[in-house]
């Protein structure tokens, strides 16, 4: 009796897939065409793909944007994973005062997205540091300045990698994820390790890390894509093209004038899509089985 509706299912799915695929297929075709053909309704693939890729990579300096994005995404991913591992370990395997408060302190940051803090964060990162200790003390010694007035000093990191790496190194999600994961590891393992005389560091590197490969992998992949896709913060804090990331760089390639080379731009958009797409293809089995679901719970 189900057979009767099969053609409806196929029709709806084919229409759905076509609409969802159309923009990307369109971009792919246009990336292969000559400059003249790009501006026509022609949807026959051309032979210009390599030329367009080369042009956007070299002339429009996409290579520079891609390099910056890789540096930032890899630095944040590694840093975040290590810091979250450390914090998770401290919260599970040690006893110390104010533990609950510290855990709450970390979790509460989930409620404060960086975007909401855009303006003060911009001030903090871009304003210059105090010129001297005397200047700093002149401001700091009076609590009225510190508590009631906006800070006049910052880190002076505008237009540097620091500005787009350091603020994202700590992660409430990561810490929470590792904490939950460690709580699920049998207690006896930690006891055995300690009785055998393992130091906490040995326990971390020899036992916890090998046992958490899946969690580490999942977190790393999610973080990499998250950082790779970031747009607002790099746009605001990086004003020099040499340090700009690829998501914002793409918009710089479009430019503002009428002479936009859309063939190049489409080639650039496709190149930008490749790293997250690789992650997706690598993990598609897990995606299909609901990996994303189990990780978020």
């Amino acid at each position, binding site marked *: 009796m189900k057979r009767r509706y099969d053609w409806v299912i196929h029709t709806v799915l084919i229409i759905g897939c076509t609409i969802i695929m159309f923009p990307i297929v369109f971009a792919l075709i246009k990336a292969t065409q000559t400059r003249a053909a790009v501006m026509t309704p022609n949807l026959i693939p051309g032979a210009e793909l390599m030329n367009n890729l080369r042009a956007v990579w070299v002339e429009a300096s996409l290579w520079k944007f891609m390099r910056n994005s890789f540096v930032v995404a890899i630095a944040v991913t590694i840093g975040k994973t290590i810091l979250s591992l450390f914090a998770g370990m401290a919260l599970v395997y*040690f006893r110390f005062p104010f533990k609950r408060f510290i855990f709450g302190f970390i979790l509460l*940051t989930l409620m404060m997205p960086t975007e909401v803090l855009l303006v003060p964060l911009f001030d903090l990162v871009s304003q210059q540091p105090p010129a001297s200790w005397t200047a700093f003390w002149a401001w700091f010694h009076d609590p009225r300045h510190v508590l009631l007035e906006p800070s006049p000093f910052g880190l002076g990191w505008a237009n540097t990698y620091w500005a787009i790496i350091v603020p994202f190194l*700590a992660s409430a999600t990561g810490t929470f994820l590792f904490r939950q994961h460690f709580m699920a590891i049998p207690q006896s393992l930690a006891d055995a390790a300690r009785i055998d005389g393992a130091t906490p560091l040995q326990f971390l590197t020899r036992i916890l890390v090998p046992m958490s490969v899946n969690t580490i992998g999942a977190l790393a992949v999610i973080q990499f894509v998250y950082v790779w896709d970031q747009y607002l913060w790099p746009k605001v804090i990086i004003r020099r093209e040499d340090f700009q990331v690829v998501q914002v760089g793409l918009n710089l390639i479009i430019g503002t004038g009428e002479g936009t080379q859309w063939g190049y731009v489409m080639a650039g958009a496709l190149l930008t899509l490749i790293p997250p797409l690789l992650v997706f293809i690598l993990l598609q089995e897990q995606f299909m089985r*609901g990996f994303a679901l189990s990780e978020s719970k």
Partner: protein
Amino acid sequence: MKDRAVFQSRYLPWVLLLPSLLILSIFIYFPAIQAFILSFYKSNLRLGTRRFIGFENFTNLFTGPFSQAYKQIMLQSFLFSLCVVVIGLSISLVLATFASQKIPGARIYRLFLIWPFALSPAVAATIFAFLFNPEVGGVNLFLNELFGIKPRWLDTPWLAFMLVVSAAVWKNLGYNIVFYLAAFQNIPKEYDEAAAIDGAGPLQRFFRITVPMLSSMTFFLVFTNLTFSFFDAFGIIDILTRGGPIGYPPFDNAGVSSIMMYRVFQEGIEQGKSGFAAAFSLFILFIIMIITILQFRYGSRSVQYGDN
């Protein structure tokens, strides 16, 4: 909480926690405090002036000379989020329902449906910007050839708004469908089959069984999609329309595709009015907190698993 504290050390846990605590304090808590302080100041980044003005920034948001614009933007943010959530989730739910049926080629369909998971807001917007470019874009060349029309997608208010919504929905489809497909695997098939034997039609089964069974997943997706439409949609709007164009009355006080986050960026960063932008940000934070609290309070209650 079961105690697993096996290692004894007075300082080691603090050494392990210090980097995370330092970064969260400096880059989240300190700016959060600064946002409060700034919101009481009239400050201009360009001129470097700062003057204490009390609650004026907050009152300006609702009664000041530009309050009409802010109210319009708040309404638009609400409409934008509503469209992204309702349209996006409806399409995802329907496609996920069909793609999880036992039919030949289901795997291929699923792959084609969920790949937009890899799209970033900027890439999605860049492709849309070309596709809907009024002069050289594929859609208009096609429409021109067939019907002799060239809609001004980016300058016509309601078209621009719908275009931004479409790009956002498209970008998020993969994510939503992945989660719905995963949820489908946890639904026992018996209910659907039992209903079918009792003579319930496919539509009836969809609305009476599938939709309620997926309600907890829908609930989760509503919140992730809300966050997306509040913040991540910034990239889409910035690349496609820059918040414009000005609408018809009563939507003529600001660009129709401006959402709150975009206005904060424009006033706080582009125009350097950091005091006012900080106050506006706190208003957004207030809404986010209400949403988060609602999520925690009602998140577990809306789960429907049947009797088991």
